[in-house]
């Protein structure tokens, strides 16, 4: 039963990883853009939620909505103002620029909030759980996280496959030069994709900060999990990201059940195994060049 419990908790944890990795997956899928500041952006959103709650004296849920909106706007502006200048056949400029932005965010957070661990208080939902059997219970908050991840990823999948803008995303991802000939303003489109990426990572940051404590330096660790989820699932595949997050989550909780403290290593080993035997990921179709 403890193993069943470990798997269930792993699936729920995977929801958080998937939610976090959504923006990475989208940015890579549409823009072929690797954002090394992604983890720091999540932590930034968590801190912003704390500040918004204390300044405006509103609940964390209200702050979350505001922070996600602000993050999305920042994403649009960052793409038009900075990232668009780094896009090209060479991926290195984007990696260097976002690495630098990550360092700036970490140090700015350290300066303003100090290195003390913080946690977002989001109400009694964090401690409540559903008792399935005597030895298996499911926390409401992890369950909510997973549901939110499924809704966000499912919504994004529908958006990309069914809408006019989603079609433009796919066309631009295929061939940006020809997409321009269709009347698509690729710079605006990239910024819309980045707004969605920033918005979802902001949301993930709030869920992350309510689940465990965080500090200004927590971002890169989360980034690693996010990349692992995206690569396991398959680069650029939306549903793959969900599956990748769940696989990583289960690997970690089952590893921890096997031997306490083995969780991170187990996650990395599963990631490396997928990379060795299925380098395009579970749902990956390979990266077009």
């Amino acid at each position, binding site marked *: 039963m403890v193993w069943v419990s470990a798997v269930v908790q792993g699936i729920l944890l995977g929801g958080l990883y998937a939610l976090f990795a959504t923006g990475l997956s989208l940015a890579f899928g549409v823009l072929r853009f690797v954002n090394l500041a992604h983890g720091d952006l999540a932590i930034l959103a968590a801190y912003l939620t704390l500040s918004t709650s204390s300044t405006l004296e509103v609940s964390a849920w209200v702050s979350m909505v505001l922070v996600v909106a602000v993050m999305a706007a920042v994403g649009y502006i960052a793409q038009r103002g900075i990232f668009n200048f780094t896009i090209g056949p060479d991926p290195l400029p984007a990696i260097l620029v976002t690495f630098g932005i990550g360092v700036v965010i970490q140090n700015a957070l350290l300066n303003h909030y100090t290195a003390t661990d913080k946690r977002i208080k989001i109400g009694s939902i964090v401690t409540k759980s559903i008792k399935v059997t005597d030895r298996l219970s499911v926390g409401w908050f992890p369950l909510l996280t997973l549901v939110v991840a499924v809704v966000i990823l499912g919504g994004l999948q529908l958006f990309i496959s069914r809408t006019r803008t989603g*079609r433009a995303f796919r066309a631009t991802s*295929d061939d940006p030069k020809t*997409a*321009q*000939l*269709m*009347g698509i*303003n690729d710079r605006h489109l990239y910024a819309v994709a980045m707004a969605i990426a920033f918005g979802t990572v902001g949301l993930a940051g709030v869920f992350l900060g309510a689940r465990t404590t965080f500090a200004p330096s927590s971002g890169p660790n989360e980034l690693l999990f996010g990349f692992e989820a995206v690569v396991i699932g398959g680069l650029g595949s939306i549903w793959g990201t969900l599956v990748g997050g769940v696989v990583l989550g289960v690997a970690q909780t089952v590893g921890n059940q096997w031997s306490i403290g083995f969780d991170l290593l187990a996650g990395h080993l599963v990631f490396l195994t997928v990379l060795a035997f299925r380098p395009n990921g579970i749902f990956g179709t390979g990266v077009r060049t």
Partner: protein
Amino acid sequence: MSDFLSVDGLEAGYGDFQALFGVSLTVTEGETEAIIGANGAGKSTLLRAIAGQVTVTGGSIRFDGDDLVGVPPHIRVVKGIALVPEGRRVFPSLTVEENLLIGAYRSRPGAWTVSKVVELFPLLGRLLRRSAAKLSGGEQQALAIGRALMANPRLLLLDEVSLGLAPVIVKQLYEALPGILATGITLLLVEQDITRALSVADRVTCLLEGRVSLCGRPDELAQDDITVAYFGLPVSE
């Protein structure tokens, strides 16, 4: 009266490589103009410059009175210019129908719809749900033309429609041109096949090493002059 499209003293190229040296040409609304010339003469570059895909370093491109230099490609689509690019460039991860719909992304008001395109190219009708990557070359070319038409352009630029296609397919594609012209679209096409270009065009411009070497109406041009303009060599006695 201002010309529909007038290119004047155009200099353009890719990075340090200059491909066009002072090219001038005018296109009258409702006519079909063909650009001929050998490989590397700058034909495709000229079309791309009109569509906004290459850097213009000198001269002007005026369309319906507006100067186009510096206008990004996606705005030129709204103004009524559509390019069918060399190599067809259909979107492989989209279906045939989605390729057509993306052509209408910033569509101007006009007659072209998915069903009108299928009427023009009946072979696309049964392929609408198929991935564009799985089409044959001729099917992809028909799709690329249909996709450009979906924007309801006033000026359609066709780049080497016949490239790499079997003659019977090329014949079918050219048979669709009258159906396109009937909707009032002006055509500017690049064609390596001189005979075909002379048979469809109201006016022909020949490029040689990035310069205009000859232009005129097909019935005014002598075969020998075309040969010289095309290859750059005098005809041997």
